[in-house]
């Protein structure tokens, strides 16, 4: 009954990073609590939903966007990034080059999406496959985070369900904070924004079709 009075929030959270670092695994672990070694390649983008009863008054619907890691999909990412309020950049501890790519993904993200008021999205970094190579954390990660306003970084393991919940909670906390600051504190606001946008989108499309 009291659910009726709950404030519902919708957060679109991006999970990006190079191919094969475990984005899909992290999302499946977080959203469904499962792990498998048999995930398909993510072509383009995919998404999963998770509902969290954040507190007695707030229910958060998290839309986790699994963005294809292949470099050339970068031409499509602006469509996938739209309306996102937070992002997790994943790299693979067993592949140092995927950490190098983190800054590339961060740039791509910063270039293509920001919060409604122009603020940058809160970003966390997930050093995945911590079950295999927790000791191979790049030494420069701390400095990188400071330099690039990364909220935090975590050693995660989708396989062993390590740190994923706490990392995501941290990100949600940031998103909530931004939400509060933006005075968009009800579920309608996001919806309305989307509708307003789709309206213009629509008309432009129709215009082009002539």
């Amino acid at each position: 009954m009291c659910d009726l009075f709950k404030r519902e929030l919708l957060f679109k959270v991006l999970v990006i990073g190079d191919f094969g670092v475990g984005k899909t695994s992290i999302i499946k672990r977080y959203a469904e609590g499962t792990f498998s070694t048999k995930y398909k390649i993510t072509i383009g983008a995919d998404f999963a939903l998770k509902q969290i009863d954040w507190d007695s008054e707030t229910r958060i619907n998290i839309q986790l966007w699994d963005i294809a890691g292949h470099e050339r999909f970068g031409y499509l990412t602006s469509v996938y990034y739209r309306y996102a309020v937070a992002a997790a950049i994943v790299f693979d501890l067993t592949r140092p080059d995927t950490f190098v790519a983190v800054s590339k993904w961060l740039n791509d993200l910063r270039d293509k999406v920001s919060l409604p008021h122009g603020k940058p999205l809160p970003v966390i970094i997930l050093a995945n496959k911590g079950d295999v190579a927790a000791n191979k954390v790049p030494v420069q990660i701390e400095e990188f985070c400071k330099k690039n306003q990364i909220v935090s970084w975590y050693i995660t393991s989708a396989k062993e369900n390590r740190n994923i919940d706490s990392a995501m909670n941290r990100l949600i906390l940031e998103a909530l904070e931004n939400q509060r600051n933006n005075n968009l504190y009800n579920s309608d606001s996001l919806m309305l924004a989307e509708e307003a946008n789709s309206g213009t989108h629509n008309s432009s499309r129709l215009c082009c079709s002539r």
Partner: protein
Amino acid sequence: MKSLDGAEIEVWELITSRDFSKIKCDNKMLLHAIKQGIPRGKRGEVWHFLAEQFCARIPPVDTELYPNYNVPYETLLKQLTSHQHAILIDLGRTFPSHSYYSSPLGPGQLALFNLLKAYSLLDPNVGYCQGLSFVAGVLLLHMEESQAFFLLRHLMFRRGLRKQYLPDMVGLQIRLYQLSRLLHDQLPELYNHFNFYEVAPTLYAAPWLLTIFASQFPLGFVTRVFDLIFLEGTNVVFLLEGTNVVFRVALALLSQHKDQLLACDSFEEIMNYLKNTLPSIDRSLLEKIMKQVYTTDISKQLNEYKVEYQVLQEEMQSVQPQVENVQKLENINKNLKEQNKNLMAQLEVALSNVQRLEKTRAVQQSTINQLKTQNRCLDVTIGTLASFINNLIEDKVDVEIPGDVRRVISQLTLSERRKESKNNFLNNMFKKSDNNTISPNRVMVKSLSTGKIGIPNIDENQILRTNSLNPRDGGFFSKSHNNILHQQKMGSYPTLEVKVENIEEEEGLKPPSLPLIENLAGIGSNKVSPTNSVDSGVGTPQSPPKDGPPTEPHPLSNCDVTFTFNGTRELKKVRNLRQIQRTSSPDLLSK
């Protein structure tokens, strides 16, 4: 598996016998056969046959553009590819639940690796792109490696698939646009529905196009689509170009699910339906879709859309400078807004300061008024006391009046007399002085009474305020001084009078034997007494002009009374008191 009738078997046998010249391919029969579905075992051969048919009708590939095009598969396999890593990672993620591909580095994955590696070397521009592994995977399920390689190359180069995998993915973007337009024209209701929930083809159709449905749809369905792709443009049925079939299939799929999709009323619901429900295709739906695919012709539209997209792109390019300009202006606007915001904040602070100061001023004004009243009262008191003492002196000659008291009394008497005989300009001066103007002697008394009533130092505002009156008071003073000097010359006042006036104005010059006044003077000099260093000489009304030698002798220079400040605010010494007493008392008494 459905049973094959005799005629169909005959067709497949004919095709696979590869005696094409003799057959001259009965198109109608072939189409009919393919509509029923090619038997699994014959598929590889049929696809190969159709590919050769197709190639026979178009000019060969320009090997200058693609120098590796004719390099044999075996040769390519001996080389190393820079895409090895990416390919390896994707092996386990291509048909991960299909038995042929599921075992890590088993025969399926190895074949897939070889095929993708060879292709990446054949076509360095494309190299490896995600999605390709599914296309290759489907081919490998129906034929051996080298044959699959031949057909992969065929699909990529001869059937136009290649463009969508190039690094800029322009081909994919054109196709996504075409699909969107197709939807707009063919299924407007669904188009509007998708548009409303912002379900763009980029979100759901990218895997359809990049894997020819293989990543999400059941293999039985996917192979039927492949059948059609190989069939198209082979002079058999549709004289069509490109990957027309993929669009027909996509359109058929969406139209078959139109009602259910329209019933979805959120972005997530639509996306979930497209991803999970739509791909599960049963036999009857498969036939329905295939039937629809055969009967729709959209090649004309697709060509139009393609041209349209290119025109749009060119337009976008041409307006690029304007777009950049707009972005620049937007940035400038943003900065200005920010500045404006800051200035507004500053203004607000300033306004609140003004308000605060205005309040302070009002409070101080009321203090001033209060002090003025007190001053008047004290004037009256002093007058009364003076007249009482005067009377006393007159009545009782034997009473010994201290010299100091006598002097003060005489001063008071004189000042009173002078007040009465003031000429008009002075009177006017006092009349003019409104509430804001503080007459010089009032300021003095005010500071005294301030000390008396225990109000701490009147703050600097007040002093400033007093100072601000300088020109006027200074004027008054210089005038009064001049006047006095003039009177002195005219002999209308005795010398002492001048002294008296100045003494009165020079606060602190009070005989120590007069306790009340002494006290007051002491307190006053500790406070904001204008004669003291706090602001003395800076044009305070009471200060005689100190800097710059006065053109005329200062009134006090004629006075016998001298006083010194030893660098402190305390009145140290009053000298020549006796002398004054001696010399002046007769005068005083005589008056």
